[in-house]
């Protein structure tokens, strides 16, 4: 039976930028635990020598585009859906610099 403790759920929530209240954390802990238990079925299989499949199209390689320019969106089109904008920029709450 997998368990996933509340601190882990809080941490994962932060990594995914989700704000969860206590009852949500409790609920998700339970649900995720049962899902993870089900998923851990995969451990029945020995995959030591099995290569992973990231792409369904096994043989497709080297897909490129030529280095030529195409028309961009107009500034207006780019910003059309923006919840907040100013002078051609997207506007967000003040960010203190540093990643």
């Amino acid at each position, binding site marked *: 039976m997998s368990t996933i403790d509340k601190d882990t759920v809080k941490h994962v929530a932060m990594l995914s*930028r989700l704000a969860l209240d206590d009852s949500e954390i409790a609920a998700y802990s339970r649900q995720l635990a049962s899902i*993870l238990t089900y998923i851990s079925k995969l451990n*029945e*299989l020995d995959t030591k020598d099995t290569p992973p499949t990231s792409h369904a199209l096994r043989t497709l390689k080297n897909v490129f585009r030529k280095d030529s320019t195409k028309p961009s969106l107009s500034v207006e089109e780019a910003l059309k859906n923006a919840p907040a904008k100013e002078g051609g920029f997207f506007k967000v709450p003040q*960010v203190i610099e540093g990643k």
Partner: protein
Amino acid sequence: MENLHSLTAHELKELMASSPVEPSKILGDVLKRVDALDGKIRAFALVNRDGARKACASAKGGGRLSGIPVLMKDNICVAGEETTCASRILKGFKPPYDATVTRKLKEDGAVLIGKANMDEFAFGSSCETSCYGATRNPWDLDRIPGGSSGGSAAAVAADETIVALGSDTGGSIRQPAALCGVVGMKPTYGRVSRYGLIAFASSLDQIGPITKDVKDASLLLGVIAGHDEMDSTSVDLPVPDYTKSLTKDIKGVRVGVPKEYFVKGIDREVEDSVKKAIGVLKDLGAEVIDISLPHTGYAVSTYYIIGPAEASSNLARFDGVQYGLRDSTAKDIIGMYTRTRSEGFGDEAKRRILLGTYCLSAGYYDAYYLKALKVRTKIREDFDNAFKSCDCIVTPTSPTPAFRIGEKTDDPIAMYLSDVYTIPANLAGLPAMSIPCGFSSGGLPVGLQIMAKPFDEEMIFRVAYAFEQSTDFHKKRPRL
């Protein structure tokens, strides 16, 4: 002519050619039907009357689907039209560009009539997680239509559109098609461009047709398939004329039946319908072979790691910066992110994002994500082996007919197991179709799934058409 909405695309094309039936008349009948029924069914997220009327006026007539009303699932971008994936977080978003399939349909002269309801971000098998409310199954309005392309399938079943497009990541075209008694196909991964499809799981998603019969599916796939330079995962192979596969001749075709698909959990009536259908194929001259796909039981677990993992990354962009919902009360950027996303995403979306993030996070990547990618190889190898001895594989599409609204919403795993038969084709990238093959004693549709080798959609069309034309399940309509 009355009730044009009840015809198929190929029947309407014949009518338009032989008699003066205008696209606007067809559209008119369809919209009347939508107005009459959609209050109950809720297949539509958006009806675009003006756009559709304009398209009718300029429909040139040359294309395979010109003048034919088409409903697009709400995760496929149509320029200037609200595209929300049935999520509050994308409310109001109008993409400045068309998806490639949208562009192809427009160039063909098809009449796009609006956006179909769906599970939020395609997360679901019942169409209950939509922010617009659940879509109902036209065969029984207390039941789910299946998901996530529930709106597309219900609309086709109820004649609220002539044809529709859905998307399929773990069965989201095939399962609702089965539950609604219509035809639904997931093409081979890479056959249809994903450019403009709002991504759920990039390595599994495909757009495909949902139609009233196999011939319509062959027409629609012919329009949307093909290489796209905007999609690195789209394959540069010529698109055959799929209608040429509609020969009704399947003599000598080797049909594989995997034993792992007929184990505990399958509804008895579903099993009976499917076994009868296999009998029909045998009568038509096909050779039925028992095969084994030994890793079938691990497909759901594999999918529920890969899908949520990729989804957690694909959905990270919904943060209030450039489009969609933004919580403007937040004073700092992190607050804006977390509040926007917490308000904008529904419960299932949050669950999958958390699950996916967890499976990718430091310390868990090898145990979950990498492990899943390896089991995916084994599942694919099962099919590679099976196709050495058969030309197609036939199974039930869904373990049960449509269940009641609310029946599985409290039990995520029970919901996930609805996809047990459809998921393997996504993991292996294979083409697969569901066609109607019977009814439960309660009058609910049952679907038969046909899978084939990569890029062998022609085999599927051949077998499906032969079956369809020797039965009349495709002619049945729900009483509405």
